[in-house]
């Protein structure tokens, strides 16, 4: 079974978010970048587990510049067999999905698995768009994925619960918590990753569907009002009259 895993580079979860003075781009000064957690912990690790039990290959795909290679190598250390990096800006999901699906169409994959959302974009959009460009079924926010012959058994999140579904390959899956446990790459994996193929290609279609006119930071929060533990009624009054929350 051949699996394609799109992985994204994102600012580390503790990064201080800042933008260039014109508000048009992210200020990467002093920021550590990591692989998007849901791509790494859930999508990639589950792909590795499936490969371990069923055989096949795992290809990582990423969009960006050469500065992304470190993250891609980490994915190879966790268990990817080879990787493709598409030169380009990963901010427009439509562009990314077009480029990734163009690659997927030219190669034979049974599954495309990625994280449910990127922690910098928060759009929940890439996997769904890839599915549409592939014209494949899509299971979003899946917490389980088992494969039995041609049939995939999945659980997906729904409001206030989950449902179990069945669908035949090929398909696109976006992975949520529960699908797998984080794996720390071992020394052998890291050594092997160095010699695994990482091909760089160009996107055929560079058009974007949206642009960010400007980024902004939220207004500073005012000081907290502290209430004495023996004076709960004051909190009730504030919640009622000031916050109008109860």
């Amino acid at each position, binding site marked *: 079974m051949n699996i394609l895993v799109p992985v994204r580079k994102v600012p580390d979860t503790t990064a201080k978010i800042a933008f260039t003075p014109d508000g048009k781009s992210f200020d990467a000064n002093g920021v550590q970048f990591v692989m998007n957690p849901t791509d790494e912990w859930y999508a990639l690790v589950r792909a590795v587990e499936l490969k371990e039990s069923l055989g096949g290959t795992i290809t990582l795909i990423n969009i960006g510049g050469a500065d992304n290679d470190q993250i891609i190598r980490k994915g190879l250390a966790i268990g990817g067999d080879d990787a493709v990096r598409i030169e380009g800006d990963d901010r427009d999901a439509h562009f990314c999905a077009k480029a990734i699906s163009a690659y997927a169409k030219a190669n034979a994959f049974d599954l495309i698995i990625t994280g449910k959302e990127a922690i910098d974009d928060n759009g929940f959009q890439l996997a769904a768009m890839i599915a*549409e460009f592939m014209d494949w079924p899509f299971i979003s926010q899946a917490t389980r994925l088992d494969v039995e012959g041609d049939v995939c058994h999945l659980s997906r999140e729904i409001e206030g619960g989950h449902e179990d579904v069945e669908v035949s390959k090929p398909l696109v899956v976006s992975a949520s918590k529960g699908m797998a446990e984080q794996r720390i790459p071992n020394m052998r994996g890291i050594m092997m990753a160095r010699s695994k193929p990482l091909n760089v290609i160009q996107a055929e279609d560079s058009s974007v569907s949206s642009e960010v006119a400007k980024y902004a930071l939220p207004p500073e929060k005012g000081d907290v009002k502290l209430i004495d533990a023996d004076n709960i009624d004051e909190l009730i009054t504030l919640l009622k009259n000031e916050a109008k929350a*109860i």
Partner: protein
Amino acid sequence: MNVLVYLDSADGRVKKPVYEAISYAKRLTQSSGGQVHGLVLGASDEADLKSLGKYGLDVAHHVDDARFSSFDSRAYTMAIGKFVEANPCTHVVFAFNHRGKALAPRVAARLDLTYVPGAMALPAEDGTVVRGVNSGKAFAHVKANKSGMVLAVTGNATELLNEEVEASISAFDAGLSDGDFAIKVVKVEKMGGGIILTEADRVVSAGRGLKGPENWAMIEELAGTLKAATACSRPVSDVGWRPHREHVGQTGTTVRPNLYFAIGISGAIQHLAGVNQSRTIVVINTDPEAPFFKAADYGIVGDAFDVVPKLNAALKAHFAA
């Protein structure tokens, strides 16, 4: 300019977050005088559909086809595509809930429209739409390069309209074949009765400060009094004290309720990222230096085991009055 709203439904009734999507769509049409169309796929209830006129829906189109009872984003996208072919709309609006997240980007890709996930407000005068990025730590003002947009709107993006009109009803045949449906739902598991976290107006969330799963009764009682959903920090769900679906934060669910109680949660940056857009935040923590106090509107420095029962009693008295 006509606008289409996808009327997400469960058990034949349109879901609550869709009401706001309808009012949002109505306001989108206000300068052009276009109509708001709604499309419901699968079982629906006529009285329920008519009542959506209140929020601004002009026409509810229903597709009575039992095959839509299993959610399949591919088949749903085909149906929405067929509808827009027959009834041109410049914009398509979704609620930013589970199905909206799975479906809206697909529809945008199919119709070649610009997609704005998590729209937080109506388009500004320059046409840009604001949405949250970097897990609530920033906003992006998005400019569309396509002729129209697909917008998935978050809670509190606009006020609900309240008009005394009924939507008119119309049947639509999406004309799909059996081969267009690929996903089979074999089992549905829903928690009984509780309030759904992603739809909740109020959330009571607790962390490792609670010491163990056996101490959650007081959290559930407080949530019951407040008609709130329960949530938790990541380590609490990692060790299995609470189910994964309650995990909020950067790597869990993002919530934006009107009122968020954080009890025995330190306020790590990854936790704050998923909750800091809540309108009012109340923190209860024994440690006056806990970082959560910096993100809070109101705080009580105290022991949860002492404060929560007292708070519950005071709220009970308040709601009874």
